[in-house]
């Protein structure tokens, strides 16, 4: 008798679980639809570049700048403040080949090998990007370069033609 009651109780609890799940699903669907007005309407009016800037912030501007000022199929030595900058650059800058270095001594070692067309240095104070304390880098001793500057409030980008 007790067993049957327990089974009934468990079955009712299961039905309750499914009902709550269903209510949550309905509520979330309504919430998602409201997002179309509250969040997504502002995306619809944006152009492709603006959308990418909104997603990746200044990092997308940096990548676009490097793309515009380096030849396709070139080899870039990238002194990058962190992984995200490197991986995003690797995606957007392809077919340019990027070698990722995290500090100036690594950079010098690679420069001595002499297989690069450009040295790209990106320094930023943005917390999410600056894993390697990039603002502390001193880069005075790169020989024979011309550079293009990209400045904004918190970042410096230099491209050296090697």
């Amino acid at each position, binding site marked *: 008798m007790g067993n049957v009651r327990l089974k009934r109780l*468990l*079955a009712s*609890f*299961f*039905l309750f*679980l*499914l009902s*709550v*799940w*269903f209510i*949550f*699903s*309905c509520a*979330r*669907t309504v919430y*998602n*639809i409201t997002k*179309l007005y509250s969040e*997504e309407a502002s*995306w*619809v009016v944006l152009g*492709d570049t603006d*959308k*990418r800037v909104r*997603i*990746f912030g200044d990092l997308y501007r940096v990548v676009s700048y490097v793309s515009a000022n380096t030849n396709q199929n070139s080899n870039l030595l990238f002194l990058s403040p962190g992984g*995200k900058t490197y*991986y*995003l650059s*690797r*995606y957007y800058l*392809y*077919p340019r*080949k990027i070698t990722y270095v995290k500090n100036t001594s690594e950079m010098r070692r690679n420069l001595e090998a002499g297989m690069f067309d450009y040295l790209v240095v990106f320094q930023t104070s943005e917390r999410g990007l600056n894993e390697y304390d990039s603002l502390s880098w001193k880069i005075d001793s790169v020989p024979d370069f011309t550079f293009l500057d990209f400045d904004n409030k918190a970042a410096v980008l230099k491209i050296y033609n090697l």
Partner: protein
Amino acid sequence: MFMIPLSVSLCLTFIIFVFIKRISALPGQTDLFRFGISYLLLFGVISFQLFLYAVIGLSWSAFSLLAPWVVSGLWLSIPGRKHVTLLVSKETVSKVSFLLLACILLCILFVGFESVLRPVSSWDSWSNWMLKAKMFFIDGAILPMFSYTRSDYPIGISLFVAFFYFVLGRVDDTSVLILFFLFYLFSGLVIYSFLRRVLSFELTLCFTFLFLSLQNVIRHGGRYETGMADLALGYGILCVVSLFYYYIKSNDRALLLTLEIVSVICGFIKYEGFVFSLIVQFLLFYFLLREKRLRELFVFIVWVIPTVGWYLYKLYGGVQQHYIFSGTGIQFSRIPVIISSMSKEFLNVKNWNLLWPSFFFAVFLAGTKIPREVRYVLLLLLLQILSYGIVFVVTPVDFEAQLFATIDRLYLHLAPSAVLITAILAGPFLSERFSRSASREISKYH
């Protein structure tokens, strides 16, 4: 621009559907189920097509890639052959089912709209899947990718996306996201068509809606996480689970071949898919031995040839082994943290609503009455979860960070199948409850 990948992929899916119907690859199944699985087969065929071209030295171009499809389409539509149509059973739409249909439609429209609203934005997508697709499109080959990225990850998703870059004639990482929405849509279709055979129309719609409205599924189907391979793998695992279920239940040999093909495809989506397909092989082997169906063991060749072929190709490409295998060994001390974090994620309502508590409760409630075919499927899912736990025990990187970053994606692989199992186990109980309450309602009026 997204209309091009959308219409091309749907047309090619239809060609696959007609083909599998002609050759009776899925006997005893409904057309909707066949069509639901066809998108995964399309994914597999396209990935294999590009891979084969690369191996035999045929160049990739829109013409060379689409020509076989056009020829196949024309061949399949020759008049006089058996006429093939997509048969959809007619349903009586009550008020409840109308409301549920409206909810499902809202979810689908929302996710479809979201999927092409933004360019690819998830880290794994642009650092891995989309990067490789872009490289394949620009280089017209696979091998340069190995030397540049040093990644030995499966390339199915990237080849699939690259195919549509060739169709579009350029890299467009916004339009192709519609392909990831289709993984969402077709997962829903497989769940619906499978459940419709065992549940009433209303209950089938209800569970389909419960799946399509899972927040993590929506994020991967069309919002910020779209472009990753996890929902694709969830869909692949769902197809394997469905076919495994039918095979164990019906013992129909014709299903076995399709099951093996679909299992191979899972291995080309992600590493976790490869582990899953390996588990399927072990369970299938056990089943065939137990049932003394030794003649059917030949089917493993369908899994072995492409799997070994891909590993040989990677060796030829000089790619390094996966980082997981470069660890220091098994770290038993991590187990309590892993178990605790994995259990917590089951209760993460934000990602899963009440899917996992309902799933475990359904299994608990069914207890010893769980049918044999469901027991096999549950074992399959359990071993897959166990494999994730093992990865965290041996990983050489910071396991807590990895656990935190990946656990919701790992559960996404199993979520579609978990909805299916919950519905199968809850079905008889719910039908009984609702028919009892319906008969009570009727008796009130008499």
